[in-house]
């Protein structure tokens, strides 16, 4: 009971803190740190330092030695000075987020952050909560870019939350930090996993999944121009270009082989995530082979097409498919 209560109060505290933080430091693509956003507390070493100050004061008192007492007070005063210096190190630091997309789940993703500071800042550490720490030795007025890592992101929209910026300069006594919300988010595609089963698709029976939807030379769609070779039909010669004096060229046409494929998700599958990963893998495969395919996903469908743009559309759709665990949590 007690434990449960503790947990509850901690939870309310965290919620309250986050609320307060979001009011004090609202999300923005660019943030310059100032007195509003910098927090300073003694570091572990700083606490050890204060213990040393007390010990020295006791030593000085016991030996009635004014110089030892003075040394202890000097070290205390140094602590005070360091608070100001550690504030100075972070204040005026400007962080700008740069957008970048297209990562697959499983491998780490990176958020490019640009840092600059009017006055030189020394040893700035950046980190998302629970993620690897990055250290910039110096930050100057000239912007330097840092790729802040998020390991093991899940499929879907990744929101790394607030970026923690920390500095212990100059003596390591104080931990000056800020938690800025750079309004960061990135789409993480489902991790492609090789599907050992044949591709699930809807098309006319008899079509070969290996070649169906693949573009072959045909008549439907204009593909481009190529050098004329003797024996090619005259109606395909690009006369306009010939008239411009660019030589004898033939227009090339292509058409998909067979009927286009439709990728579908078996929603009754016990592992939806795996199924989605398989679809992602198939999307990659089909795009690599330049095949035409469409996607139907819980009633929503993307008409058959091919190429990089199409691939992005399909992968985005797969990435945004609601996660079952999340659904459960909501219920």
């Amino acid at each position: 009971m007690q434990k449960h209560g503790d947990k509850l109060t901690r939870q309310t505290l965290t919620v309250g803190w986050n609320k307060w933080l979001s009011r004090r430091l609202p999300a923005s693509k660019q943030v310059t740190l100032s007195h509003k956003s910098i927090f300073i507390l003694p570091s572990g070493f700083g606490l050890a330092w204060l213990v040393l100050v007390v010990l020295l004061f006791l030593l000085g008192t016991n030996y009635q030695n004014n110089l030892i007492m003075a040394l202890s007070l000097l070290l205390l005063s140094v602590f005070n000075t360091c608070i100001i210096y550690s504030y100075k190190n972070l204040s005026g630091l400007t962080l700008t987020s740069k957008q970048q997309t297209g990562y697959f789940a499983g491998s780490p993703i990176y958020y490019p952050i640009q840092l600059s500071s009017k006055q030189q800042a020394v040893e700035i550490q950046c980190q998302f909560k629970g993620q690897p720490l990055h250290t910039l030795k110096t930050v100057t007025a000239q912007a330097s870019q840092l790729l802040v890592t998020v390991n093991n992101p899940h499929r879907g929209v990744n929101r790394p939350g607030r970026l923690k910026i920390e500095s212990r300069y100059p003596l390591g006594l104080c931990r000056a930090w800020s938690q800025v919300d750079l309004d960061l988010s990135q789409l993480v595609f489902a991790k492609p996993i090789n599907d050992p089963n044949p591709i699930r698709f809807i098309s006319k029976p008899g079509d070969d999944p290996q070649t169906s939807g693949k573009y072959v030379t045909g008549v439907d769609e204009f593909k481009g121009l190529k050098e004329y070779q003797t024996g090619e039909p005259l109606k395909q010669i690009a006369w306009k270009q010939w008239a411009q004096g660019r030589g004898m060229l033939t227009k090339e046409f292509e058409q998909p082989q067979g009927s286009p494929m439709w990728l579908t998700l078996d929603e009754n599958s016990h592992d939806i995530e795996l199924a989605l990963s398989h679809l992602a893998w198939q999307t990659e495969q089909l795009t690599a082979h330049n095949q035409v395919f469409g996607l139907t996903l819980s009633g929503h469908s993307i008409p058959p097409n091919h190429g990089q743009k199409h691939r992005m559309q399909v992968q985005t759709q797969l990435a945004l498919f609601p996660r079952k665990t999340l659904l459960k949590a909501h219920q």
Partner: protein
Amino acid sequence: MSGEQQNISRHTLMWLLITNIAILSPLYQQITLWTLAICAICIFWRIGIYLGKVAKPPKWLVTALAIASAATLAMIAKQIGILNAMVNLLILGYALKYIEMRNRRDVQAVVLVGYFLIAFTFIHHQSLLSTLHLLIVTIINSCVLISLFHDKANFINTAKLGSKILLQSLPLALILFLVLPRLAPLWMVPPQNKAQTGLSDSVRFGDINELTRSSALAFRATFSGAAPTNEQLYWRAIVMEDYDGKSWQQNPRISSQQAIEPQTANMTPAATVNHLPALNSRTLRQFDYSIIAEPSYQRWLFGLDVANTQERDIRLLADFSLLADRPIEQKRLYQVSSLEHIMEPKISREVASTNLALPQTSNPKTRALAQRFALEYAEPKARLNAMMAYFTEQPYYYTLRPPKVGEQQIDDFLITNKAGFCVHYASAFAFMARVTGIPARLVTGYQGGELNSTAGYYSIYQYMAHAWVEVWLADEGWVRFDPTAMIAPERVEQGFDAFFDPQTSYLIDNPFSSLALRDNPFLNNVRMRLASVDYFWSTWVLGFNEQKQQRVLKEILGNVTQTKVIIFIIISLTVIGLAIAYSAGIIQFSRSTDKHLNAYYTVCNMLAKRGLARAHHEGPQAYNLRVSQSFPSIDADFTKLTQYFIALKYQNMDAKRVKRFSRLLIKQSRWLKIKILKQRLALNNATT
């Protein structure tokens, strides 16, 4: 923290090397030989690592070394004293950690221990020069921490920042030092096993002689009012009542009093003196003075005549000598006031018999001489004066190199050799007085003092050590008799230097002592000036105690109250904080240089608070349009403001027009601000 797992850079290693040597070198007196050996090995090993010649030592080796040295230290702890053992242990830990260091945390630990060692150095080195030296060592130690962050920064940068931080911290430290309450020692610290210097608690012929060869400072005294003349400066230290034919010693009555714990001691100074009746026939003379005693590692302190002190940890013993509760291990400042009181107008039979006791059948010739005085002079005072006169009538000679004496030492001196120094004369006089039935005792202490006229204090050196006699006379108490004054009056009237050649006495063993400069007027002046700087340092820094603190605070604050002190601290903290922030470049006193921009932006900011923020890319005109739509009530005013602003910002105008528009803009801005504020207030009232 993952940041602390980083390796230590070469830059930091170099700073550590410098720090190590800087911290350990002033501790040379405390370091035992084998500690020094281990330190040397560690430093050379580290240099080897730094140069890339040697690998780091394996962990087991460091652990084994640490255990072995700790065990050895524990064994010799008794011998070198607990404090020294502690210092050596810290030094060893410091040196061993130094080669074993792997990450940031290790470096930080080493630095913290470094500060501790600096503090320990202060126990033995407290001069102004040592303090400045140790301040630099403190800066170097702090630079190690900075170098952790300054990987690629050069040496000078780190040193500069370190000095800057430390020096900027000095003012606040000083104020805290002024304000923070002085506490009494919280617990007894282990005494240091150091050789005692100065007077000892037993005197043999020849003991004082050794002291006259020392040019070391014993103590310094400043009189707050008129100072006594040189011949009155008899600084009493130890009273000896037991004579066994060889040496004078303290009576167990007194020495047992010393052993009493301070809490249980029933002899409080004030109580003792209050019991003393004043000498009615004479006007009382009182001398108030402060004394800075140099470390002697003994408990004796010094005072004139009947000295009284209010210090908590100094007691007045039954024989009117001052005794500290703890050995004087560092410079000690105490206040004394001396009164010309009668010392014990009545003494118990026990005390009388103690001060009359003589070893059986010793010194028959002296006894015979004394009996003759007793026969001739019945009145004790006349008898004593006759004895004193005897020393001038006979060819007695005052020398620091007296001939040897045999078993009957007083006979040998008084009858045969007729040459000796203060101890000889005092012993003989006390002996004769006791033979004739007058209680007498030997007092050792110092006589005279060198006046530093610039700073107005007396320096008393070890060579001024002296011995004289106190004789008890009915109604007069203990009265001082100094037979040496009869043989060498200059020694007492003008001081030791008037009688003896320094070169053959206290400069014999210390030819380079600064006292050797006395012959040269210019150099002597320099010596005196340096000495007065040291004196002020000793009084105001080393001897800064509760009373001094009260005095200084009264100077600054007038009536000292707790609230005033707190306000004083807060104000100084703010002022110092602002000054540091300014020097660090956080605060700039020059406001935004463009007052036109300011005037425009303040109005924009106020509107932003009302929910209509100007976007970064938005021009003034576009913003004006939006304002007109959202706040029609201020439309006209804001349009005017925008026009003035645009005109000033983007149009080329002559100086006169700029001035006019500038005035208009600022006026308009002020007007608008008031208007917006009024509207907001009205809005607030409406909602509540």
